[in-house]
């Protein structure tokens, strides 16, 4: 019996060139054997940032890149029959060959044109696509329909580009007597682009930013160390000053976008809301710092699912999970592409409950005794969802007068399913509202000491 093309064993390589990084994701799928996985790599192009328009950035570079990628993934990608000509090694079996290579180039990528031309000259076997607003809008439409959310925020955070895309589906009246209700999805976007590095470094001197900092640094320390981070971008930050500055910078940038687009983003989330975070900042900040920046920058409240896509898999294979079996590249499972989710609860905590339990619940799975979880008032708590089995149910309730300001429900219930839709954490932001920063770093330090209270499980 012949195998349906959908179920055929297959592998596909997608490269995303964005913010001076090449993100490589190689997807393998063998649905008959129920074996699918994604191999990921990121390569920082910053050492080449002044040379991306030079003669050195040619065929030789791309040959070397694919050679190294083969070794890194332990997967044959290049057909070496033709010397000096790049040909894809057709898919044979796991670890040998791919059915295609697609390169997505972000239209904000520095020297976009040079990279585009150099790849076009390099090989005709590679399909080159542009990652622009149109592409992201298509992804947003698809996610709203496929993932069952009525509202999605896609927040792409890179130091020099901040973008927020929102998709919202509402039922609107239709038909002759306006009695039919049809869903309508609206997509909005807003961005901040830092065209030149000097402007980005100088921005650190603004008084607005200083009101978000917790450390008392001299102006020289701030500008020198921030300047070095911008001039020599790195993949990891150990300097507490830079953590503080980057958190404050991210919060302020998001707040600026929100305030100048108050008609598009109101920050009110529902159980059918999701936030997707991509971009390099999510790799540089700690999870807690990122949460503070997102929640306070966008002034979020309510409940939502958060996906932090550090490897930018959703840009690369988002379309495959939307198109499912109709996907032209490869059919892969949602669980391989979608990062583990974080359930976020941002309720209104009454001042009298600031030292009390404001959320309590239990985590249960088949054949395992349920485990209690609880969260106290006044801090942001990250509770790990314990690995109890294939399917885990988390149930809980807001307590002691705590409620969601825009909703009447106080019960929370969600299910985590391994390799499909897995939750790794539950975040309860139990800080008393309104959140006020400043006026000086000492005040912020005192507040963060309370907000960063230890995790409870």
């Amino acid at each position, binding site marked *: 019996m012949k195998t349906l093309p959908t179920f055929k064993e297959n592998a596909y390589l997608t490269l995303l060139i964005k913010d001076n990084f090449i993100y490589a994701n190689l997807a393998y799928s063998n649905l008959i054997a129920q074996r699918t996985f994604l191999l990921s790599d990121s390569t920082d192009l910053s*050492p080449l940032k002044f040379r991306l328009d030079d003669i050195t950035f040619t065929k030789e*570079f791309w040959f070397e*890149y694919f050679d*190294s990628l083969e070794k890194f993934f332990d997967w044959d990608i290049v057909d070496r029959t033709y010397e000096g000509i790049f040909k894809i090694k057709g898919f044979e079996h796991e670890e040998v060959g791919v059915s295609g290579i697609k390169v997505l180039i972000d239209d904000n990528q520095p020297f976009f044109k040079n990279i585009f031309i150099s790849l076009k000259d390099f090989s005709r076997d590679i399909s080159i696509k542009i990652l622009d607003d149109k592409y992201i809008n298509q992804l947003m439409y698809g996610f709203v329909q496929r993932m069952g959310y009525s509202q999605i925020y896609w927040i792409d955070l890179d130091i020099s580009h901040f973008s927020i895309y929102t998709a919202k589906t509402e039922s609107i009246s239709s038909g002759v007597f306006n009695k039919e209700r049809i869903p309508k999805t609206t997509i909005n976007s807003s961005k901040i682009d830092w065209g*030149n590095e000097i402007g980005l470094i100088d921005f650190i001197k603004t008084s607005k930013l200083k009101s978000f900092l917790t450390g008392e640094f001299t102006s020289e320390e701030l*500008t020198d160390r921030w*300047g070095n981070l911008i*001039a020599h971008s790195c993949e*990891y930050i150990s*300097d507490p000053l830079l953590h503080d500055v980057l958190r404050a910078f991210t919060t302020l940038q998001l707040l600026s976008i929100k305030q100048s687009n108050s008609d598009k983003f109101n920050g009110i989330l529902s159980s059918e809301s999701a936030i997707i975070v991509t971009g390099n900042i999510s790799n540089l900040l700690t999870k807690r710092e990122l949460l503070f920046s997102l929640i306070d920058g966008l002034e979020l409240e309510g409940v939502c699912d958060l996906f932090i896509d550090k490897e930018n898999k959703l840009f690369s294979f988002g379309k495959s999970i939307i198109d499912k079996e109709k996907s032209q590249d490869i059919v892969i499972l949602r669980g391989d592409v979608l990062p583990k989710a974080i359930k976020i609860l941002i309720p209104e905590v009454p001042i009298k409950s600031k030292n009390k339990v404001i959320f309590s619940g239990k985590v249960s799975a088949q054949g395992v005794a349920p485990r209690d979880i609880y969260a106290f008032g006044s801090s942001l708590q990250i509770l790990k969802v314990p690995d109890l089995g294939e399917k885990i149910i988390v149930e809980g309730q807001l307590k002691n007068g705590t409620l969601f300001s825009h909703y009447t429900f106080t019960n929370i219930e969600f299910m985590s399913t391994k390799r499909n839709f897995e939750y790794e954490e539950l975040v309860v932001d139990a800080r008393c509202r309104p959140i006020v920063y400043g006026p000086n770093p000492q005040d912020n330090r005192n507040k963060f000491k309370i907000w960063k209270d230890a995790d409870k499980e």
Partner: protein
Amino acid sequence: MQIRSRVFEKYEKYIFNIPLLGSDKTDIKPGKLNVGDILFQRSDSTLKKSINISEVFKCKGAESYKYVFKIDGEYVEKGEVLAEKTSSGKLSIMQIKSPISGVLDLSRITYGYIDILGEEGNIEFKSDFSGEILGINPIDGITISTQAVGIDGVVSSKGNDKLFGKLEILGDGNSILNEGGLNQEYRGKIVWVGPYLYNRVATELFERGAVAVLTYAMSYTEFREIGLPIMILGGFGSVHCDLEFLKRFLSFKDKFIILDTSQNQLFILSESNFKNNGWFVNQYINQTVISRALSTYGYIGKIMEYDQESNNILVEFGKKGRTLMNIGLVDFIDL
């Protein structure tokens, strides 16, 4: 995967232009260029005095030309008014008078400088590199293709300028100097001042005619304030300048260099027989790295051990000792 940053990158065919001034004379023709060939002859004068208009009038360097009364090449007597600025309320007038007699040179007016020149003489520019002359014309000057070594940096003054000059090393190239140690003129020179630059030294160098200044590190605030063509090769603040880098860089003393301000790159016109390593790092042990961690920023070392699980590396930094750090805190370099 990790990319190796080529600190000194070899360019086999670097094409550049040497702009010709009105008084320049050249006999060369398109074709092969050999070491020792005379590129051009320039009538040049000694620098008697430099005046920084932007400093006196507190205006941007690029706006200084608005206040100049004289034309380029004009002879001025001592006491003649060179530039004048009226205050915004038109109640006061600030004037700059020539402190000496001489010929005005406004070639650096975009950076705010008026130069007063003295005796004229002829200078021959001899090539110390070989290559090919691609063309000569009054607009582009002399177009040459040659081998070059490229170095990345950050340039303070943005523009589309390609500054051309000879690399001058101050002192031993490794000491931090103050302005008191400067006692000659630097016309036509791009000056390496050492691992750290104070703005007073930079100002003094420009007043002595330097085309541009190179350093490894300086304060970002001073870098932004100065508005003159300064290139930083290392970073901002107190950044360690490693001897490994310095040894190699100082070997280019007296070479012709081109500072490309728009590309943030420095090109040393030099035939070198080194070969760059491949772009990608296939295994980490024994690779050369430069630290981006706060306590060891700028130190160059070798990776001794790598732990895949934690993504940590053990780096030997010579006299600084060994440090355990995350791999994301270093840049792999080809030195």
